[in-house]
């Protein structure tokens, strides 16, 4: 997700030209207030009962808008002494509302209690992801990393203006004024004022030049590095509002009958029976199927079951996953495109004393976010408004704008809490949003809530691709690894997306990341890739390529270590001599886990270490295996180095969550296709982790002054290989396909 192609860049740049005109601070501020005001106004008009309005804003911002002090796009202080921190990234559980608010609160010296986190409107000019150029969106574990300076500067700027306001009011030099927990004070005179009391005056002062802003040194931090409580509140009493919970005046609910197989279109349909219910309002053909529009979900769903649809299956997908995997296994034996090559791996393997070969298989995976995909859309003649767990603002605006013939700024996106995403909501073709807009366009002026059932969600594709890896490794007589050759076969995620820049010479970096970047000091290494084409739509899935490359590389290195008679931790430490941050987490995890200490009979320990999105994670898993082969992951010790730890508790939560998320495909999850049909449809046959399968997790954070990096994804990759290695330590067997069967 770090590579945007030039075409998209140009298109986005054009789209934002108009907003570009508003460059002066005063104008920006007006524009900003208009945008923020617009959120409230839009909702006031649209919400069915006034009581719901407060619930609509993710955290219920109370600042009086007209009097707000809004020195930049991210900070807004009301006369009521509330501080709203505008969050440009979607909160999908990863804690970004807390992390980004922490950065502002730190430099502003606000009281944590007075801070509200509020979702930003869509505006690729002001709220772009700094790692993605002119594009707003969340992904690649980049929220904290790209915002670290930006949010701190926003807070420090606001503080400087508040200090200047106090200096003016008290007729004192700014240097004598100090700020602590939301209160400005002057020691000499005992004068004190809150942010709220100074907000109006501060708003009249010039915005200082960014260069004059001094940011704190790490030793001055009071919030950064402390586990401040989360700011995405309302999640324990049912008041938090997700897309599923949006209620608008006159809103109707839509469900869509989707084709049974990829590549299928509607030939004809009969809706007579479906329309019989007086709660069904309309039945509409759209490009992705037949939409039933009704007064409520259940009526729509019942009516959908009564549709008679004839599908045109002439171009339907008809392959099964067995066949796909068999084809990939064959391809893996041939040469692929070169993703990485150093030394001469052919010679090295030819002259090696021992050569080990392994073929790994990974199935398709569904994201299965807890909230099935859904979207509320209202289309009017020359505007469109969306309510969504909005992750991909600029792309969604572009796709919807194209569909409706509207400029992007006429596509207003309200970012609500997302009930999970794991990559699913960042879709280059905005699949479910576009579907909602098609229906809303046909019902112009009526808000439409598109609701996917779990079955719709699970069978819609955009899966983590299936892959086969063939790996060969050679040891010399002393047990040194002399060569490593790996061929990865599977669909390319980036092809045809705005992130096509990530494909070089036919190599999709997202298919090989983690393998082509193998850190171990191996003198001869070649990694190849063959990108296949299937009719199955694929997408990034929490940690993307690392979901499979960490497994093959970390189990294979383990197998080589054991074969060479070396301790898996010792060997890794030796081969990572040039990579201190890798070594740091590996050593910490091994020490804390008591690596080498005795375990009960039938128990085993396994380790894995992996870097993704510039964060380093090592995990040691302990498993117990019963005589009948049933096993349990008992305990996981995790060490993470993500630079400056902004909020240690959120980091721990993301490691715990990432471990559980990665355990599901290790133990139970797989999407299979039979004659082109997705077999799994709901949680009875697409299993995910449950509480009884969750190990005890212990997280240790490496102290660091390096720039902070993400934690949403990096906890996922190491767990499956750590578990497989632990099992191997008990059974002596190796596990080459997921989910693991012992």
């Amino acid at each position, binding site marked *: 997700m770090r590579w945007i192609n030039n075409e998209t860049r140009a298109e986005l740049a054009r789209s934002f030209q108009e907003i570009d005109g508003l460059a002066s601070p005063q104008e920006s501020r007006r524009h900003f207030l208009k945008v923020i005001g617009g959120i409230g106004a839009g909702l006031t008009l649209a919400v*069915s009962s006034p009581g719901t309005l407060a619930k609509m804003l993710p955290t219920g911002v109370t600042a009086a808008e007209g009097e707000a002090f809004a020195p930049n796009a991210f900070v807004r202080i009301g006369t009521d002494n509330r501080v709203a921190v505008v969050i440009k990234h979607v*909160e*999908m*559980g*990863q*804690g970004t509302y807390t992390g980004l608010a922490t950065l502002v609160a730190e430099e502003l010296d606000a009281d944590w209690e007075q801070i509200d986190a509020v979702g930003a409107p869509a505006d690729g000019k002001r709220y772009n992801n700094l790692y993605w150029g002119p594009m707003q969106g969340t992904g690649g574990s980049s929220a904290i990393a790209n915002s670290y300076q930006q949010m701190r500067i926003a807070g420090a700027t606001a503080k400087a203006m508040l200090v200047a306001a106090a200096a003016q009011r008290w007729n004192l030099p700014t240097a004598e004024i100090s700020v602590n927990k939301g209160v400005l004070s002057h020691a000499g005179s005992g004068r004190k004022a809150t942010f709220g009391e100074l907000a109006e005056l501060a708003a009249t002062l010039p915005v200082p030049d960014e260069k004059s802003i001094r940011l704190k040194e790490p030793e001055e931090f009071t919030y950064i590095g402390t*586990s401040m*409580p*989360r700011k*995405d509140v*309302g*999640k*324990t*009493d*049912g*008041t*938090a*509002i*997700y897309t*599923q*919970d949006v*209620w608008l005046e006159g809103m109707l*609910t839509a469900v869509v009958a989707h084709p049974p197989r990829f590549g299928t279109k509607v030939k004809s349909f009969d809706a007579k029976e479906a329309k019989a219910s007086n709660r069904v309002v309309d039945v509409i053909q759209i490009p992705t199927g037949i939409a039933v529009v009704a*007064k*409520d*979900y*259940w009526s729509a769903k019942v009516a959908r079951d009564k549709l008679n649809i004839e599908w045109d299956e002439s171009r339907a997908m008809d392959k099964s996953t067995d066949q796909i995997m068999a084809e990939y296994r064959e391809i893996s034996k041939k040469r692929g495109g070169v993703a990485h090559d150093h030394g001469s791996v052919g010679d090295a393997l030819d002259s090696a004393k021992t050569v080990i070969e392994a073929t790994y298989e990974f199935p398709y995976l569904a994201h299965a*976010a*807890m*909230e*099935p995909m859904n979207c509320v859309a209202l289309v009017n003649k020359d505007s469109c408004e969306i309510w969504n767990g909005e992750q991909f603002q600029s792309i969604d605006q572009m796709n919807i704008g194209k569909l409706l013939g509207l400029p992007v700024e006429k596509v207003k996106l309200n970012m609500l*809490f*997302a*009930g*999970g*995403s*794991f990559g699913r909501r960042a879709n280059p073709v905005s699949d479910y949003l576009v579907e909602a807009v098609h229906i809303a366009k046909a019902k112009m002026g009526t808000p439409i809530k598109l*609701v996917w*059932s*779990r079955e719709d969600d699970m069978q819609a594709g955009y899966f983590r691709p299936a892959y086969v890896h063939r790996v060969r490794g050679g040891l010399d007589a002393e047990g040194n690894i002399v060569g490593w050759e790996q061929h990865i076969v599977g669909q390319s995620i980036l092809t045809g997306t705005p992130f096509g820049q990530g494909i070089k010479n036919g190599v999709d970096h997202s298919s090989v990341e983690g393998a082509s970047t193998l850190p171990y000091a191996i003198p001869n290494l070649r990694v190849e890739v063959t990108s296949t084409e299937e009719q199955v739509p694929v997408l990034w899935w929490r940690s993307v390529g690392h979901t499979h490359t960490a497994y093959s590389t970390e189990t294979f290195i383990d197998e080589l270590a054991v074969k060479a008679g070396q301790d898996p931790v010792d060997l890794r430490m030796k081969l990572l001599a040039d990579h201190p941050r890798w070594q740091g987490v590996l050593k910490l995890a091994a020490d804390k886990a008591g690596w080498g200490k005795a375990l009960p009979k039938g128990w085993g320990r396994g380790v894995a270490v992996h870097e993704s999105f510039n964060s380093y994670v090592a995990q040691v898993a302990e498993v117990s295996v019963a005589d009948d082969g049933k096993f349990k992951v008992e305990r996981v010790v995790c060490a993470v180095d993500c630079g400056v730890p902004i909020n240690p*508790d959120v980091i721990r*939560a993301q490691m*715990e*969550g*990432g*471990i*559980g*998320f990665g*355990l599901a495909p290790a133990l139970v999850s797989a999407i299979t296709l039979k004659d082109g049909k997705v077999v799994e449809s*709901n*949680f*009875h046959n697409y299993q*995910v*982790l*449950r*509480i*009884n399968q*969750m190990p*005890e*997790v212990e997280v240790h954070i490496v102290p660091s002054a390096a720039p902070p990096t993400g934690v949403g994804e990096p906890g996922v990759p190491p767990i499956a290989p750590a578990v497989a290695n632990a099992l191997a330590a008990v059974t002596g067997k190796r596990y080459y396909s997921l989910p693991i069967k012992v």
Partner: protein
Amino acid sequence: MSITLNVNGAEHQVDTTPDTPLLWVIRDYLEMTGTKFGCGMAMCGACTVHMDGQPIRSCSTPVQLAAGKKITTIEGVSSSAASPVSRAVQQAWDDGQVVQCGYCQSGQIMSAIALLEKNPKPTDADIDSAMSGNICRCNTYQRIRGAIKEASKQLV
């Protein structure tokens, strides 16, 4: 047909088909959105409510079965009249910083309250069996377990 429902102590008349799942009556007719839709087939627990104190999956309970029963939703356990168990559970959830995306948590909390109402000192095995019907895709399970134990400590 018209059905009378008692939800969180208040009577509601709804005009719907008897087989409409209780979940959709709560959400789409009564416009109470704290109870979530996750799977629609009693596999995930997101829709958990209490019927006469028992935890049930409202997505798979036809509304006619709820007539004449006392239904409690997440809104009901969050009011000032909530039971000590409800308060202890929600407090433990907040103190333990359990939630991530939060979408499963209404259901988790309803299951946890039902467990502790019946069994104030649950063992790990008790927690597993009471809570394994509730999926959390963010995998907050460790903290859920911790929060249940913490709430239990506050109660006994």
